[in-house]
């Protein structure tokens, strides 16, 4: 297990050494969203009874920041190693494919949580939020970060250039994140978009995470966690299979 712990520690140190860029920068960006949207919409929108719009917004923004940063951590670390060629330092030692997987996913989860907790704490300055179901909250946070960490690994394994990486990030991850109900309840959408949103696994992460705070959600948290858990399982098996086969790593 020393190999796994070393790789996990190295991945943590990697993002911590550039924490201005990897922690502080996403924190500030998310708080700007919070500042602007809450200022513009707080007086006009109420999604759940008894919950102010700013309070409603905070869990969504926390989860969005967690997902984006978990994805960014594994994907950027791996693509940089591939492009710079220093991936050989991980391929020459006797690290098992599952150790590789566990270290990258765990580091992605940690970065996601660090940024998410930062956004959450800072959000308390804007509006009161209380946690009503901590277990649901933690389950969705962990599953969401792990899922995006895995997506990051898959993308970085597949991508042959930074351009391809950016394409996946900009044309898949970002739209799925923004169209997942961070800023609204899907019940406020027209029926077509409402139906489409139900095919977006990011929607269930945000919705379930929000349930952890307010005890209210668009779909039942059990259904949400089943879907997110199913996606996690499928992505785990895919990522492990790719790593085991040496896909685009060991030609």
């Amino acid at each position, binding site marked *: 297990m*020393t*190999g796994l*712990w*070393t*790789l996990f*520690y*190295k991945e943590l*140190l*990697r993002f911590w*050494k*550039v924490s201005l860029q990897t922690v502080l920068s996403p924190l500030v960006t998310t708080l700007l969203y919070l500042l602007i949207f809450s200022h513009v919409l707080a007086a006009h929108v109420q999604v759940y009874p008894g919950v102010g719009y700013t309070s409603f917004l905070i869990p969504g923004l926390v989860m969005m920041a967690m997902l984006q940063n978990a994805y960014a951590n594994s994907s950027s670390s791996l693509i940089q*190693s591939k492009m*710079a*060629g*220093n991936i*050989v*330092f*991980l*391929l*020459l*030692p*006797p*690290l*098992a494919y599952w150790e590789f997987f566990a270290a990258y996913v765990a580091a992605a989860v940690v970065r996601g949580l660090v940024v998410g907790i930062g956004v959450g704490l800072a959000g308390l300055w804007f509006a009161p939020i209380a946690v009503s179901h901590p277990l649901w909250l933690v389950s969705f946070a962990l599953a969401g970060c792990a899922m995006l960490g895995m997506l990051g690994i898959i993308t970085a394994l597949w991508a042959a250039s930074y351009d391809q990486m950016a394409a996946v990030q900009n044309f898949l991850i970002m739209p799925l994140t923004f169209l997942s109900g961070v800023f609204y309840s899907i019940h406020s959408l027209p029926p077509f978009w409402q139906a489409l949103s139900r095919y977006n696994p990011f929607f269930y992460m945000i919705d379930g995470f929000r349930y952890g705070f307010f005890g209210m959600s668009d779909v039942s948290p059990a259904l949400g966690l089943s879907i997110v858990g199913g996606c996690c399982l499928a992505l785990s098996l895919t990522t492990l299979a790719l790593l085991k086969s*040496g896909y685009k790593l*060991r*030609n």
Partner: protein
Amino acid sequence: MIPAIEIHEVHKRFGRLHALRGVNLAVEQGEFFALLGPNGAGKTTLINILAGLSRATQGRCRIMGHDVVDDYRDARRSLGVVPQELVYDAFFTVREMLRFQSGYFGLSRNDAWIDELLHNLALTDKADAPTRTLSGGMKRRVLVAQALVHKPPVIVLDEPTAGVDVELRQNLWEFIRRLNRDGHTIVLTTHYLDEAETLCRRVAMLKQGQVVALDTTQNLLSAHAATQVRLKLEPHRLPDALRPLLAGEGADFFNLALDDYAGLERVLATLREANIAVTELEVAKPDLETVFLQLMGKTT
């Protein structure tokens, strides 16, 4: 004794390119072995297969008896590879890199050996420097240190002295020689054939994915690189009796290959009988470069 490296009938195809065509090779424990060949001959591909960076299309490889696919953990623990590409991780210092590399090999407390490596590779004062700030030669030495961090019995160095200046190159070889004396098996590829000739007891030459020569350096030199003499003659004409010895010719000279120095006397006697004067004579010692060029299908 189990061979340090066994390569059995290894083929590698990249699409339509047949990069390795049935390579068979065994390197005994404690050997200092050179793997030579022109660019594209398959040296790095073969090393990559040994290291698990690439997978053979067909055939098996073993490091200290451990199959590089089925028993990859033990095989990789037995092997240290200095890659050809000058790679580094810009985020970390030299010491951090070496600690990580130790950890990946399962060694959590390795600082005493890391300090010794840094000392031997003249990197002690750069231990806490970020790797991106090092010169090319220093980065190369960090790669050597990373390959040795787990004290592997078999060490493969793919062009280790490329970009390293003469003095440091000598230091590096002295260090590698010492590792060999301590029992480590060393396999190297290099473009400096004089290095291979001086250091290595046995040599394999690869050409277009096949082993075209595999012997001791001494045998290769005596079998393929006869002593050569370069003669300028007046008139510029070679008697028919000497034609079988002709190894090359230019506008004003002939190169003759001799089995030994005694042959020179017979050449001079033949020329005297033919009334041909020798205006210039130069004897060339056989070297690995001559063997290499001959085997690669070129003439000198």
